[in-house]
């Protein structure tokens, strides 16, 4: 816990209408690190991410780069430097691949750096260059996930929130995407908060992990430790 924390959540409660989902979550994401958020379905992983970008009503305290996100609008949280790849990927299927990417970079004014980032994104995901004039709805699930990650990368965020990037993808594609996430994290020092069902893979690339259980943090610790702990693995991570 040496690095300064970029994102700090304290006793965050949230829910949908009368149903409360998070019962006081505290977690922190240090600058430049990958943190995994694990747990069963319905544990509150997606809601935690949605609270950060204010897609759900929450109470408690969420601070990003020293600034409180309380009462902020989603678009302003995003503009502050948080890229959120939501559940379902958030692809705009009426638009082309290229237009989707442009929506990632539309707020940036550093033209030369943007062009470089496009080159890099196309290097990571050559298929997006080939398909850039096609409607995003024609992409396969794996390609849509690539597009979502690429678009988030073009936003040049300080923090990326990734909601189940492996969902519904072939194991090979999952590997490739995780390697790229790791590469992005290392080359740009982008911090990542990764929600993932595939605990084994998530623990491999993250430095710290939190396991949620019905809206509370059940376990937290260094990823390497959790991975090595047989009983934690069996009872919480299911592998």
């Amino acid at each position, binding site marked *: 816990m040496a690095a300064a924390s970029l994102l700090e959540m304290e006793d965050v409660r949230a829910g949908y209408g009368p149903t409360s989902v998070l019962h006081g979550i505290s977690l922190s994401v240090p600058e430049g690190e990958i943190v995994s958020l694990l747990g069963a379905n319905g544990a509150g992983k997606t809601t935690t991410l949605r609270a950060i970008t204010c*897609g759900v009503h929450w109470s408690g305290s969420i601070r990003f780069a020293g600034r409180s996100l309380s009462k902020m609008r989603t678009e302003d949280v995003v503009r502050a430097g948080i890229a959120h790849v939501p559940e379902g990927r958030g692809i705009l299927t009426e638009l082309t691949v290229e237009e989707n990417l442009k929506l990632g970079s539309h707020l940036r004014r550093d033209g030369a750096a943007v062009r470089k980032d496009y080159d890099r994104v196309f290097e990571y995901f050559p298929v997006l260059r080939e398909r850039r004039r096609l409607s995003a709805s024609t992409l396969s699930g794996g390609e849509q996930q690539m597009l979502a990650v690429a678009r988030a990368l073009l936003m040049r965020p300080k923090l990326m929130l990734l909601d189940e990037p492996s969902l519904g993808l072939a194991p090979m594609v999952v590997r490739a995407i995780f390697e790229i996430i790791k590469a992005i994290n290392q080359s740009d020092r982008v911090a990542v908060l990764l929600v993932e069902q595939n605990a084994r893979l998530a623990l491999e690339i993250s430095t710290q992990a939190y396991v949620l259980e019905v809206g509370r943090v059940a376990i937290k610790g260094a990823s390497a430790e959790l991975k090595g702990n047989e009983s934690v693995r069996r009872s919480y991570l299911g592998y």
Partner: protein
Amino acid sequence: MQGLLQQIISGVATGGIFASLALALVLIYNAMGLVNFAQGEMAMLATFVAFTLIDHGMSYWIAFPVALVIAFAGGIAIQRVVIRPVERAPILTMVIVTLGLATLVNGLAGFIFGYVPRSFPSPFSVQTVDILGAFVSYRDLGVIAVSTVVLLAIYLLLQRTTVGLTLRAAAHHPEASRLLGVRVSWMLALGWGLASAVGAVSGIMAAPILLLEPNMMQTIIIYAFAAAVLGGIESPLGAVVGGVIVGVTVNLAGTYLPFVGGDLQLAVALAIIVGVLILKPNGLFGRPSVRRV
């Protein structure tokens, strides 16, 4: 044959007027999933603004863009003040609000300007020019030119600029757009502003032909509905093509079908609406809406 060509060109000119108002309807339909029943009345009010400016000695070609800018600002103001409070309300509530808005704007115009029809100037003469043997008025050619320029400008704005891209994104996927930093609420307001300005073009083009009075747009809006439905209510291109088709059809029907004449032209438009809804509910350019269950 020349007579037919003449009627077609004249129909295209009327079609340009329908197309502009239909495009306004489509812009708002895309932004909020509802038809703005006040669109015609807003266009009429903007036309009165243009009339007032010209009446006070402003030249036509300055009054025209100034009226569009005022219509644009007015559209944004209406969205912020009247529509935004009911944004999350059920669709029927919003429909009633736009109907109420139509009545309000109509009454307001009547209160301020009265109900006596006024002649509205046109910068184009009604003299005709010989095109392939057909006599076409400069006014029709002017209306076609102005509509083309405006529709092209909107197309370029939507398809080729960043603002246009974020506008389309906000209309189709508000939640996903917010996560990309798009200020969705302002984009919807901008959509209302644009729709209001495009609608104003329709009113200003129609006024010299119809005479300006508060109920001027009430038939035009029916033709615009027909055009938008024919083109597929979500498609801007469809609205334009639909507008031209409706304009030409109505004109030809009025000329060549003796029982239609001048009196039943509106019935032709309604027949188009009903026919499209029965035979091809998504219109010419609309996508079939598929829902997963």
